[in-house]
């Protein structure tokens, strides 16, 4: 089964998953109780007529099936519906928040992968020594901590008690920067705490994955062959062990994305970071269902896409499957 055939099969599978998600996404929000419009606007100044008009605007009066058909038609034309709260197209609202989240998740994930893999390798290589046991327990502890709790602790220590980092947000609104560098430094200063907190949460996972993957690889026969060939320890690790050990890590990183999104929601809520996570949290509290629906779809498709890329990367790295 050649590469292209494999690609096609994987793509179709991803599409099916996306469609199931779309279907679930639509009906998930239709079983919700209460009429969103009336809940949203509990303001005596609004005439009953206005309420009716708004309800029409969102097509809430048609039958479920008609609503689904409209939902599908709009979806393929990139229209994720209009937000009850902002009265803006959901797509614009979501797109506006993407850079902030990508910046946060991006740096945190990259940082945690690098450090996580590095530590994983050290702990695997020095298995059984004190470093390994301490490191392993520490990673397990980090892995077991609720993300929001770590965030709160970090804020309490660094932003409230020592006040060396800002409390939250992405920058001092309306601040005046003498030069680009000062602005960059200020941006970094605002980013530092949330990113480091997020990285701490993720490192645990990557250390564990890498360590157990490397331990398994190190027992393989070809490692004995390499040693028999007189290969140095360093080359045995980087030329023989790592290429094999990295394969499962790549897949797990992709599957881990769903977990990362969950973490982002918590980090952004505690640090007032204006990303997708905060948008989801406020959409939840405002019962802004179109935004919830659009966000949920957007995040899930992003995760499916990432998994698809991880599959490709895995296939590219592992010759056993490429042929």
């Amino acid at each position, binding site marked *: 089964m050649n590469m292209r055939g494999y690609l096609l099969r994987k793509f179709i599978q991803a599409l099916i998953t996306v469609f199931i998600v779309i279907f679930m996404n639509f009906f998930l929000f239709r079983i919700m109780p209460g009429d969103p419009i009336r809940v949203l606007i509990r303001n005596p100044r609004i005439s009953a007529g206005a309420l009716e008009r708004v309800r029409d605007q969102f097509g809430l009066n048609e039958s479920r099936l008609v609503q689904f058909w409209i939902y599908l038609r709009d979806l393929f034309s990139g229209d994720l519906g209009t937000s009850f709260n902002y009265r803006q197209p959901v797509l614009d609202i979501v797109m506006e928040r993407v850079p902030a989240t990508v910046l946060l998740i991006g740096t945190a994930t990259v940082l945690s992968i690098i450090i996580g893999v590095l530590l994983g390798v050290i702990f695997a290589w020095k298995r059984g020594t004190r470093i390994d046991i301490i490191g392993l327990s520490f990673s397990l502890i980090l892995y077991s901590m609720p993300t929001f709790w770590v965030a709160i602790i970090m804020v309490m220590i660094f932003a409230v008690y020592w006040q060396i980092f800002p409390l939250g947000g992405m920058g001092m609104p309306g601040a005046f920067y003498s030069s680009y560098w000062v602005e960059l430094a200020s941006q970094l200063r605002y980013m530092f705490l949330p990113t480091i907190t997020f990285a701490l949460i993720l490192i645990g996972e990557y250390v564990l994955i890498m360590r157990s993957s490397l331990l398994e690889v190190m027992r393989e026969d*070809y490692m*004995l*062959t390499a040693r*028999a*060939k*007189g290969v*140095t320890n360093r080359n045995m690790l980087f030329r023989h062990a790592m290429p*094999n050990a990295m394969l499962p890590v790549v897949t797990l990183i992709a599957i881990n994305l769903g977990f990362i999104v969950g973490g982002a929601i918590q980090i952004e809520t505690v640090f007032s970071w204006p990303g997708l996570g905060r948008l989801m949290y406020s959409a939840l509290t405002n019962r802004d269902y179109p935004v919830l629906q659009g966000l949920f779809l957007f995040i899930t498709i992003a995760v499916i896409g990432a998994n698809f890329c991880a599959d490709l990367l895995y296939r590219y790295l592992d*010759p*056993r499957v490429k042929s």
Partner: protein
Amino acid sequence: MRLLEVDNLTTYYKLKDGYVRACENISLHLERGEAIGLVGESASGKTTAALSLIKLLPDNAHVMAGSIKIEGRDIAGATEEELRHIRWKDIAIIFQGAMNALNPVRRVGDQIVEALRIHEKLSEKDAGRRTAELFEQVEIDSDRVREYPHEFSGGMRQRVMIAMAIACNPKIIIGDEPTTALDVMVQAQVLQLLETLRREREMGMILITHDLSVVGETCDRVAVMYAGQIVEDGPTEKVFEAPSHPYTRALITAFPNIEGERYLAASIPGDPPNLLSPPGGCRFHERCSEVSELCRNEAPEITDLSPGHRAMCHLLQRKVKVK
């Protein structure tokens, strides 16, 4: 001067509750171009003995005593760094070659080039050309150098292992059950190939196997191992025709010969002893058909039956004395 001189080689595995005495006072020697077979049941210590020569042992195994002289130079006390230059330069190994004795994610050619560049200081290009030649010698099409291990059949993979083994013209080749995983036809071809290469290059060979017929065909001398000790060794014809040690006799009768007359193969009762606390006296006494009180209490001496043919059994001593 002899190619290889091993005296009283003793290797133990350190466990939490004591030592496993895997090899006890192993002595054997090898001339240039000569092949010796190491036979015995599984877990008799034959692989440990062979791999102890270059300390290719897991981290909890230690060579406790004994001298290992290659062309007069004793490498028993060699440091890991010195051993790294001896491995594959002086002594190369052909592993059993189940699916992954070769690194699955790297091209077979590169794995041979790696050995060449470590020991032969060849440029990338020369090493590449050398590898192609080696492939021809082991009757593999040289342009398959760029393929991956999973693209080769079991037999072909063993040929690659052989190519890799002879790449640096080692003085000695250890074959650790090299053909056990192959079916009979391919087994014969591989053994034939090994035979011709050994003759051409005047290499010494230590062939580890539990299959007496393989030893009969390819080895000049044979050493029978039981419970970590060599109980009998000598020229193959002598040992096969006149097996002196009860265990050797039982081993040979347990191995029916295609041409010989038909008889019911007798198996040896009981299991090999637990080497964590080996039995007193002769280690075979629990399963020996001609056991005596002496055997239970006293460890037997090695008796020279004829030039080059020795065995370790009380019976022999009495017989010799009586005569």
